[in-house]
């Protein structure tokens, strides 16, 4: 299943958040959205996931979601959004309970995603007992449990320290390499973008427009060994963004 944005624009009252965004998210690829803070990345992701209606333009779904998919557009949130009163397993079960599944199949799905995110030993733990990195793994497991057609990740690693972030990036690469998924990955971290993105979309400051697109052809699994090449790409991205970021930083916010 492929997603297509057709000249999407949106405003909150008088504040124009984004304008004329057209973009394709191809199947089995990770598209990274980068841009200065406040440029509408989260809003765009909410529009993509059907949590917000765009004022102009449309979001199209091309093709059917694969068989067995329970929730085609699935979020991973920056602050994890785990229910603190449910255990790790309970949090994953939450998103399966309203689907008609046999108990055995539900168990199977839960066991499978716990194993894939290496959380099997933590299935009975409470979220408060887990580190930030583990919590985000639970959120990833929960997202994988509904077999999404497209994953929408809103700065999933921004609340983590840099070592944990490295570990989770490796996990994401391993997950994708084993079973390629389609994803839109919002970040303001250029390092994450060049490590995880097949395509990187640079947005301008508010109102967000597409300033540039950059495709990186190195396979995800090989990027850890291609530091030089990635550093060059990152520098290229930064040179495109620097002026925008500077201007966005000096902007008064009264929106």
């Amino acid at each position, binding site marked *: 299943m492929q997603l297509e944005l057709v000249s999407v624009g949106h405003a909150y009252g008088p504040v124009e958040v984004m304008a004329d965004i057209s973009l394709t998210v191809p199947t089995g690829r990770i598209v990274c959205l980068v841009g200065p803070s406040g440029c509408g990345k989260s809003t765009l992701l909410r529009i993509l996931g059907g949590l917000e209606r765009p004022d102009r333009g449309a979001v199209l779904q091309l093709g059917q979601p694969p068989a067995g998919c329970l929730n085609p557009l*699935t979020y991973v949130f920056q602050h994890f*959004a785990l229910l603190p*009163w449910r255990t790790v397993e309970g949090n994953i079960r939450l998103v399966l309970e309203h689907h008609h599944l046999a108990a055995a199949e539900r168990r199977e799905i839960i066991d499978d995603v716990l194993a894939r995110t290496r959380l099997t030993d933590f299935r009975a733990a409470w979220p408060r007992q887990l580190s930030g990195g583990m919590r985000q793994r639970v959120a990833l497991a929960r997202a994988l449990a509904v077999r999404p057609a497209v994953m929408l990740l809103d700065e999933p690693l921004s609340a983590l320290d840099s070592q944990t972030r490295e570990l989770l990036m490796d996990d994401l690469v391993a997950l994708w390499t084993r079973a390629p998924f389609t994803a839109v990955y919002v970040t303001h971290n250029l390092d994450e973008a060049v490590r995880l993105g097949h395509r990187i979309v640079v947005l301008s400051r508010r109102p967000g427009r597409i300033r540039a697109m950059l495709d990186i052809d190195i396979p995800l699994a090989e990027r850890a060994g291609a530091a030089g090449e990635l550093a060059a790409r990152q520098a290229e991205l930064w040179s495109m963004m620097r002026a925008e970021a500077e201007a966005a930083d000096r902007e008064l916010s009264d929106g």
Partner: protein
Amino acid sequence: MVDQTHSATGARPVAARPIAFRGGGFAPRPVRHVAPALFLVLIVLVEAGTRSGIISNLTLPRPSAVALTLYDLAVSGGLMQHLVPSMRRLGVGIALGLSAGIGLGVLIGLFSLIRAGLVPLVAALFPIPKIALLPLFVIWFGIDETSKYALIAFGTFTPMVVATYGAVDNVDRTLVRMGQSFGLGWWAIVTKIVMPGAFPAILSGMRVAIAIGIILLTAAEMLGAEYGIGAYILTAGSLYDLEKLFAGVSILSMLGLMVSFVIGRIEKRMLDWR
């Protein structure tokens, strides 16, 4: 005498001393056995004071005499005679008030129209001292039990409504969005996300509401009841019988402690995720 200069090699200054500690404090921690000890000391002081005559027997009764009165009351069956009607009034009134309060509070939390209509109304009812409405309830429901139920129900209802919709308002909206993003239906979001999220604050609202219920129970019983802890205390007071008066007051205190113990238990059991 303190020489601040360093030697030419940059080695240690001549006078070395540990820096002064200025952190710590402002972190209360539980200390065991202090509360029972203080309680015991106070009882002993009053007992000694009343026995020696330093405290006149019109100021405070002897604690031992109060204990004896409680014992007699329990043995003679008088305790049950007063406690049972009190507990029934409290139970019925609180059950009505809390369930209506929680129900309406959740509706206010969930529906804008209900909120717009009822929040100002509740805000107007909230500050009325509910005991002022007892005469009205007597006119409406008669002098017997119903007016007491109504008073306690109404008095616990208003604080419970306010606590409940506040609790619902404070449920993390990103959790609700999360539920929506996984396709959970409205009812599933209310029962699995909103209600559990509001539950801790609803429980602490209950604590406050029940304490108010006990106040209203006593007041209502003082104003018109044959049996009940409030009536017992009032009778004792008009007879200058301080032993009985304090016996009645201790029963109320124990009642309050029991309620808070039970709620504490529920919190421990249901909120072990915190």
